[in-house]
């Protein structure tokens, strides 16, 4: 059983007890525990079920690479699935539950998958479940959905807050082991601005666990001194619990700081995302031990040898009473020696190498530990917990020589440098045959804007696994970083780290090397995604030669741990199956983040009201106080309608439309884009920008214009007013002001940069109010000021003056078909004028109206709306807007494109009105059906609805739509499909439903 030892534990405080629950059971740990060490101290080795076969799983590792120990952590607004118990610091009151099992962790019906495992090989999704077709929907998919998936989705809103932080440094050091500390010291002493981040809560990495001495003292003493020195430097910043998540272009890096995960609710932000710009980045990210591939290597109790050492040294937890060590290298002997020293039993060290003779091996033998060389594990015995191992010859096929009872197995297949951050931005790797791992190739480092390398790997992350080399390499990295930045590296003796020497390791990719199919099916590579040696071999037999394809076919390394343990083992198996060298097969791509980071951290402060800026018109508060039902329009909020007591939205819209047509309506049109275009060449420029002629517009007049992109497609429309000889004011759609302004600047700066034209986006400078309806003129005349009579201010003219004492520019334009004035006043005067209009308008029956009434009225008039009648594939000619396309101009943006064969095809869908036979309202976006089917067996279509409303004015449904050769087919009745499978009949009619001659707007 796993238990807490009576003595030791460098990271724990035995006197500070911490209560927590696991699957509702109350357990106790101590301060300094991780959730994993606390569970193990309570003999909770079984912590989850595997993804595919629901096999019982326990902890394999003690750090970020852990694939099995994932839990649902927390409750309510702090619930989060898939949290690694090995990197979760224990706190009082922590609540967690195991995942991926039903009905319970101990008894899982899904484990029936076990005996069926041979029917779920690599690629089973692709081959087993496709035929027969109906089975996918009714049998396979429900089964897979039931059994697949890790953890649960949080049900409540996240109770925590998150923040972003920006940092600019000369040298970013990622990893606070001895190499990283020394690199930071070297860079800091040279005067560089240094940020040193460490993903755990502790400095020093593995050195204190592995019994390293530095300058003759235990590593911990040197680490304390190094920290003190770093803390004394003003140019150095230190952060623990801060992981280097990713390295990106030009020295950009992300740090993921888990500020308050260990103290939830303490008012600090839970996570902080560091956005770091560094001239140089040192990746001192350490190395990860690899498992060995033997049958049953996933049974709870089988752990990495280094993890066993971590649990004993850091948290005084023994994973078992009797631990068999199995290895292909000397390092694992440290585990055996440590266990022995802690008073535990090590029945044997099983060493796959034919001979072993390093100092650590000698020490083990001298301590009386049985060492079996040339041996392997044929299979691990046990189901939910290791009960023993069967020994075999490593060179053989797995014939059992002896069975050794034990309750834990410590395995080591060698070490792989953590090269993720080196690789994120293009750093290349080289194969180190001596240590059987990929390490960074310094000749092919990631390069920055100036072509110089900007990432330097250091320590065991650079392939220097021995403490002495690692420390020296950290020093060299720090000095090399500052020198490359033109700073002088300060001298000083490099501290000397010492540990027992190690003899050479021997790569072992399968144990025993001649294992048959039965054993290979039980050798796990990827614990989290349940990928075995046999799966990768099958993929190779089926022709998957590329490691990237094999990964996707088998799902090797595609789980939340991204194959930190398994990838090298997997590609070694693949390369052996293919008869190729490992470096030839290569690795899959390393992508950020290094371990999963929270969505909260990515979002930072951008949530709720601060998700994006909200744009408010000057009259926003009035709308709010008068019951506006809001609609988002770009980043603006506009009133959709103003419902009165008990009114539905539909009723309110109907009332607003009728009142505007019969009496008087008021619309806040401030969101309309207003772009000033000025200069001697302004007219010439607008002639290129709009499809119609603008240069011959007279000052004092307005003209409706269409703007296309160079593809010919309609992108915006609006009224242009000529202010004076050199000045135009271009109105754009509400959402369009910014991108139309950018469009103008693009052409002015990049194509016609010699034209003397200047643009300014004045959208927010003006409040604009539309006074609309038969009494519009009466109201303005009542308020007094400028002459707004038909003679002084005819339709499509504008003039300047005062309305109710406010300086105003008044445009006689109409988007509703009624007598209409759009009054622009300085934004600061908008609310005052609005309120004057409202109170003076009472006697005329004035009511404000919202965007929906605006839409209904424009549709009744057959006016197009950008985004409804257009979708980026529609040209003005499709919309019957030929009258707004100049025939006289040689050129305008989009003209050449509109001459292409497809654009002049008479078969194009063109704008018409649609009148349903029963008076009903057509569904939005409904397609007009045509006879027969296309090659894919889908019904042919001949048009679609682009706008559809109930018209309160006409008291029936009206719609606009694009129909093949539509304008030639007036009076024809066509069928539209609805979502419930029925059809609706509609007659093709003129798109103008109301006041076709425009008598009402032109009074």
């Amino acid at each position, binding site marked *: 059983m796993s238990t807490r030892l009576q003595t030791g534990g460098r990271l724990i405080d035995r006197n500070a007890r911490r209560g927590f629950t696991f699957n509702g059971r109350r357990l106790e740990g101590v301060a300094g525990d991780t959730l994993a060490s606390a569970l193990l101290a309570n003999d909770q080795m079984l912590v989850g079920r595997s993804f595919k076969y629901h096999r019982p799983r326990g902890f394999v590792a003690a750090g970020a690479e852990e694939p099995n120990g994932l839990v649902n952590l927390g409750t309510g607004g702090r619930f989060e699935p898939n949290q690694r118990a090995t990197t979760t610091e224990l706190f009082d009151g922590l609540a967690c539950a195991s995942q991926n099992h039903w009905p319970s962790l101990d008894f899982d019906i899904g484990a029936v998958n076990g005996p069926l495992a041979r029917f779920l090989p690599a690629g089973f999704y692709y081959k087993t479940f496709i035929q027969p077709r109906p089975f996918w929907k009714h049998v396979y998919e429900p089964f897979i959905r039931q059994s697949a998936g890790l953890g649960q989705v949080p049900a409540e809103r996240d109770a925590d807050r998150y923040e972003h932080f920006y940092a600019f440094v000369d040298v970013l050091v990622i990893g606070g082991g001895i190499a990283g500390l020394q690199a930071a010291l070297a860079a800091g002493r040279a005067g560089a601005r240094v940020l040193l981040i460490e993903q755990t809560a502790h400095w020093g990495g593995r050195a204190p666990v592995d019994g390293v001495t530095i300058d003759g003292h235990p590593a911990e003493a040197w680490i304390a001194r190094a920290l003190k020195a770093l803390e004394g430097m003003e140019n150095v910043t230190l952060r623990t619990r801060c992981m280097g998540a990713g390295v990106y*272009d030009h020295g950009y890096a992300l740090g993921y700081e888990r500020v308050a995960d260990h103290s939830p609710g303490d008012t600090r932000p839970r996570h902080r995302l560091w956005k770091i710009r560094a001239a140089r980045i040192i990746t001192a990210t350490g190395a990860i031990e690899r498992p060995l591939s033997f049958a049953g290597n996933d049974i709870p109790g089988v752990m990495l040898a280094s993890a066993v050492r971590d649990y004993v040294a850091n948290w005084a937890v023994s994973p078992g009473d009797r631990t068999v060590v199995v290895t292909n290298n000397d390092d694992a002997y440290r585990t055996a020696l440590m266990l022995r020293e802690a008073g535990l039993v090590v029945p044997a060290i099983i060493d796959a190498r034919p001979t072993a003779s390093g100092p650590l091996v000698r020490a083990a033998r001298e301590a009386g530990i049985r060492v079996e060389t040339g041996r392997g594990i044929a299979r691990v015995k046990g189901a939910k917990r290791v009960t023993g191992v069967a020994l075999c010859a490593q060179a053989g096929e797995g014939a059992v020589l002896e069975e050794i009872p034990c309750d834990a197995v410590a395995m080591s297949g060698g070490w792989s440098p953590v090269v993720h951050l080196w690789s994120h*931005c293009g750093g290349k790797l080289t194969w180190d045959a001596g240590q059987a791992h990929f390490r960074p190739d310094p000749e092919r480092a990631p*390069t920055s*804007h100036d*072509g110089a390398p900007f990432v330097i790997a250091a320590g065991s992350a650079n392939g220097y696994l021995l403490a002495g080399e690692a420390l020296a390499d950290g020093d060299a990295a720090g000095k090399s970083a500052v020198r490359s930045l033109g700073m002088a590296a300060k001298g000083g003796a490099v501290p000397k780290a010492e540990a027992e020497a190690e003899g050479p390791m021997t790569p072992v990719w399968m144990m025993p090397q001649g294992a048959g199919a039965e054993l290979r099916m039980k050798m796990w590579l990827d614990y989290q995604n349940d990928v075995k040696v046999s799966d990768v071999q099958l993929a190779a037999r089926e022709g998957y030669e590329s490691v990237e394809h094999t990964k996707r076919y088998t799902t090797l390394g595609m789980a939340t741990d991204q194959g930190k343990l398994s990838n090298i083992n997997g590609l070694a198996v693949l390369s052996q199956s293919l008869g190729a060298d490992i470096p030839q097969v290569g690795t899959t791509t390393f992508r950020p983040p290094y371990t999963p980071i929270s969505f909260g951290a990515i979002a930072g402060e951008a949530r709720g009201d601060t998700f994006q800026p909200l744009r408010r018109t000057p009259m926003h508060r009035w709308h709010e106080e008068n019951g506006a039902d809001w609609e988002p329009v770009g980043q603006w909020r506009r009133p959709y309608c103003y419902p009165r007591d008990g009114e539905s939205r539909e009723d309110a819209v109907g009332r607003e439309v009728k009142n505007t047509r019969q009496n008087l309506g008021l619309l806040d049109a401030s969101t309309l884009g207003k772009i000033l275009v000025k200069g001697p060449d302004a007219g010439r420029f607008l002639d290129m920008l709009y499809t119609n002629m603008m240069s011959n517009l007279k000052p004092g007049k307005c003209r409706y214009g269409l703007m296309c992109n*160079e593809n010919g497609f309609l992108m915006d429309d609006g009224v242009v007013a000529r202010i004076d000889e050199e000045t135009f004011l271009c109105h754009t759609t509400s959402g369009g002001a910014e991108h139309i302004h*950018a469009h103008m*600047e693009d052409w002015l700066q990049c194509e016609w*940069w010699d034209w003397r034209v200047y643009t300014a986006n004045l959208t927010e400078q003006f409040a604009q109010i539309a006074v609309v309806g038969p009494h519009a003129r009466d109201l303005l005349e009542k308020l007094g000021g400028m002459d707004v009579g038909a003679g002084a201010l005819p339709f499509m003219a504008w003039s300047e003056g005062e309305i109710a004492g406010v300086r105003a520019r008044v445009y006689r334009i109409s988007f509703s078909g009624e007598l209409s004035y759009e009054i622009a006043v300085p934004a600061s005067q908008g609310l005052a004028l609005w309120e004057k209009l409202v109170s003076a308008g009472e006697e005329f029956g004035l009511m404000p109206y919202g965007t929906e009434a605006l839409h209904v009225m424009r549709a009744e008039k057959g006016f197009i709306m950008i985004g409804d009648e257009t979708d980026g594939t529609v040209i003005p000619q499709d919309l019957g807007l030929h009258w707004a396309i100049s025939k006289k101009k040689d*050129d305008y943006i989009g003209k050449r494109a509109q001459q292409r064969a497809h654009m002049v095809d008479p078969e194009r869908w063109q704008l018409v009105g649609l009148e349903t036979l029963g008076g009903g309202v057509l569904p939005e976006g409904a397609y007009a059906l045509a006879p027969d089917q296309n090659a894919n067996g889908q019904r042919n279509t001949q048009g679609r609805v682009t706008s559809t409303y109930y018209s309160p004015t006409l008291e029936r449904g009206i719609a606009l739509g694009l129909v093949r050769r539509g304008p030639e087919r007036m009076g024809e009745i066509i069928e539209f499909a609805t979502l419930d499978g029925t059809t609706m009949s509609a007659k093709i009619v003129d798109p103008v439903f109301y006041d076709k001659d425009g008598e009402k707007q032109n009074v």
Partner: protein
Amino acid sequence: MLILHCPHCGVDAEETELAPGGEAHLKRFGPGSSDAEFESYLFHRENPRGVHFERWRHAFGCGKWFIAARATDTLEVFGTYRAQTAAPPQDIRDAITAKRPGWAWRDLA
């Protein structure tokens, strides 16, 4: 997350301040051009692994357009210059040649 120097306002701008504008130095074809010319202007783009010329706008800065000469494979930036330039200036071309002898882009070399 590139950093590009804005030749108008002198700021070394983060990519978040910039808006990309695609390939630089396109020649516009309008009415009167052949179908082939227009197709090429509208759709045909270089897709080099290596030296490339791109338009960028300092959209959340001074608002000006400029052109960046950079390597698409290593992210090295050889230089930036104002968009009001018909062809890559000699000093930019020299800077590229110094780093990438034998480079070619469209009909430039």
